[in-house]
């Protein structure tokens, strides 16, 4: 009898996630924990966290964490990495934090090629504050601030974050993955590990955008939310690796 699955060591043994039932944040945190464990950098890791549901990482991870002002996680990660280049520094942010409030910080961190890793959870809404329209909200999606659905004329189009980051010369790895099925979860794990490895090798900015569900604010069951990712989100936000400097 062989153990084929265990929880990551960097997640506290008594951790109980406080996310809503069916929220994919839990899966993303577990995959990130696995990647940190597999890279063997747990003792040298510092996390820069944002404002939003993703900030709860500090309750569950047994690592050093810094809570940053809204959207400024990548700027603070830059400071930490420049002061302590021997440390492994990552940010874990939502789409509103990374691509709206903190887009200037995020895009310039990628442009400068800072050797940090960023994970962005894209659930097409501001989850913690009650489901307002975010930068990635789909056209036609009903939120509390777009009660008639997002309109291109009035609100513009959803932002494709991974493609934007891939255009920056300092980016070493940029990918978009999804957590809607077991096959996609396995691919997500590989992408997150790769984004960590490019930092450890000193190649540049590592970025992964994760399509994730928010059943509470979407007003769906967890199963319906995963179907929504497959049928509505993936056609707009195609999955894949958009930049990988390790592959020619």
């Amino acid at each position, binding site marked *: 009898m062989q153990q084929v699955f265990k929880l990551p060591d960097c997640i506290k043994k008594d951790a109980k996630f406080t996310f809503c039932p069916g929220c994919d944040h*839990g899966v993303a945190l577990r995959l990130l924990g696995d990647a940190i464990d597999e890279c063997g950098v747990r003792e040298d890791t510092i996390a820069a966290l944002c404002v939003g549901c993703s900030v709860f990482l500090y309750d569950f991870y047994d690592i050093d964490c810094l809570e940053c002002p809204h959207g400024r996680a990548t700027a603070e990660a830059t400071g930490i990495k420049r002061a302590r280049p021997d440390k492994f520094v990552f940010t874990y942010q939502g789409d509103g934090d990374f691509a709206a409030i903190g887009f200037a910080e995020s895009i310039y961190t990628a442009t400068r090629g800072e050797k940090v890793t960023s994970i962005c959870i894209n659930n097409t809404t501001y989850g913690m504050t009650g489901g307002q329209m975010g930068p990635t909200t789909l056209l036609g999606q009903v939120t509390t601030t777009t009660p008639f659905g997002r309109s291109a004329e009035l609100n513009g189009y959803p932002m494709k974050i991974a493609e934007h980051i891939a255009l920056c010369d300092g980016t070493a790895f940029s990918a978009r993955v999804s957590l809607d099925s077991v096959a996609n979860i396995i691919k997500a794990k590989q992408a997150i590990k790769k984004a960590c490895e490019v930092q450890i090798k000193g190649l540049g900015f590592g970025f992964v955008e994760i399509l994730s569900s928010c059943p509470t604010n979407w007003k769906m069951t967890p199963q319906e939310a995963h179907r929504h990712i497959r049928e509505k989100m993936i056609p707009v936000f195609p999955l894949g690796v958009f930049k990988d400097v390790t592959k020619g």
Partner: protein
Amino acid sequence: MAYIVLDTKKCKSCYLCLDACPKGLIKKSSETGMTGNFVVEFDDKNGECLGCKCCALTCPDLAITEVYK
């Protein structure tokens, strides 16, 4: 015979594991959990579990803590 270790104190009754198990070995139990809904149980009387980890990979709440094969 493969098996999973299930911590029902962490289960939030999202039932994503019910769809993930290819053998349908995870079912709703008659016990209620932290959300007031029925938690899941692992029911493998015939030793059908493959140890494929699909349930553990899908669980967003770390309720499936170990898988043995």
